[in-house]
């Protein structure tokens, strides 16, 4: 008898790994203190990993992949978040992978950081709104503040007074990246 060959039929997926419950349920002490990674985030050169702090089992629901409530300390693109994060609604995704203890140093020693992005403080108005404001205030070139909301995993920041922004933000299409300049051949 020849060996059985499993042929998969169906849509392919970008996920690789197993669900969080599959990992956690087989580990001693529910894997507390162990390191897990999301394979989807391994596209970044900066280290992305999570360390399990607490595990709470949840009842299995019929016809659903089993979820689990796990509190983790999350490091994303080289930045460790100050508060522990709870994973529940995404725990069913078959994209988690357990890091063996001897390989943890690979992530811990990776000290790459995202290049800081400094946004300008002001941006011009859209054309019609600019005309209205010119009429109302008489200002020749009115500007508004750039929207920015500070979060823990945001890598950009707004320029301080007198600082030169590293990124231009304008009310037009902007300059295409060098990689994508091919797309605009003969158009610009």
């Amino acid at each position: 008898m020849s060996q059985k060959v499993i042929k998969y039929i169906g849509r392919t997926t970008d996920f690789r790994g197993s669900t969080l419950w599959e990992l956690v349920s087989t580990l001693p002490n529910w894997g507390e203190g162990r390191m897990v990674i999301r394979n989807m985030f391994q596209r970044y050169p900066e280290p992305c990993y999570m360390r399990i702090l607490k595990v709470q089992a949840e009842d299995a629901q019929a016809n659903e992949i089993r979820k689990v409530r796990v509190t983790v300390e999350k490091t994303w693109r080289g930045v460790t978040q100050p508060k522990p994060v709870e994973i529940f609604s995404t725990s069913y995704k078959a994209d988690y992978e357990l890091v063996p203890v001897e390989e943890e140093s690979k992530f811990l020693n990776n000290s790459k950081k995202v290049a800081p992005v400094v946004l300008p403080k002001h941006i011009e108005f859209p054309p019609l709104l600019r005309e209205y404001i010119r009429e109302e205030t008489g200002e020749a070139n009115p500007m508004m503040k750039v929207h920015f909301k500070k979060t823990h995993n945001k890598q950009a920041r707004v320029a301080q007074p007198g600082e030169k922004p590293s990124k231009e933000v304008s009310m037009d299409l902007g300059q295409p990246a060098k990689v994508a300049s091919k797309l605009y051949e003969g158009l610009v």
Partner: protein
Amino acid sequence: MLRAGCQLLGQASVAKTGSNNFALEFVRWRRKPRWLPVAKSKLFRVPERKKQTEEERTELMRLHNQYKTQLRSVRQYLREEVIRYEETSTADHIVLTPEQEEAEFQRCLDENAAWNAAIAKEREIRLAKERDEKVVYVQERLEAKKLRDEERLERANARVLHEIEQSKTFITRENLDAAIETALANPVDHNFAIDMGGNLYYGRNATQFPQETTNEPPQQALSN
């Protein structure tokens, strides 16, 4: 549900292919309705996943970020402007000094008190009138009850007297034999017919009436 869908499908196909007398042609059910299952021929079809090239992905991401920053900045500006306008404008309210506010409040209080006094006066008059009316009404009802009771007593008295009067002809144990004798001596036959004119027609012979009366024309019924 499914069957209804199939029927609709059938109708639609008839309307589409058959000759119709109208200029209109409805093409509402052109595709498979959503609630029908996947066609057998499409059951194992796996849709292809389109891969974006690196440059396309980068450029779309850049445009998306650019657009979101622009839009959020405009929204933020407009939101702040609305707040600024609401704080500074006097369009929907009149700004008053504390003294003016106090005076206005006092004026309102006085007006309210005056209204209350006027209404209290009206209410006093109305309540007094209502009280008088109530007294009169109760008095009337009491007198009517007195009258009613008296009448009732009179009626009862009259009835008792009537019954006493009637009791004189009652059959008692003493005159029972005499009453039976009288009844046997005078049998009464109630079997008779009566016509529209009130005439009596006796049909039996064995009555207390004499024989000759049956040959005579029917006598006039007595009206009592």
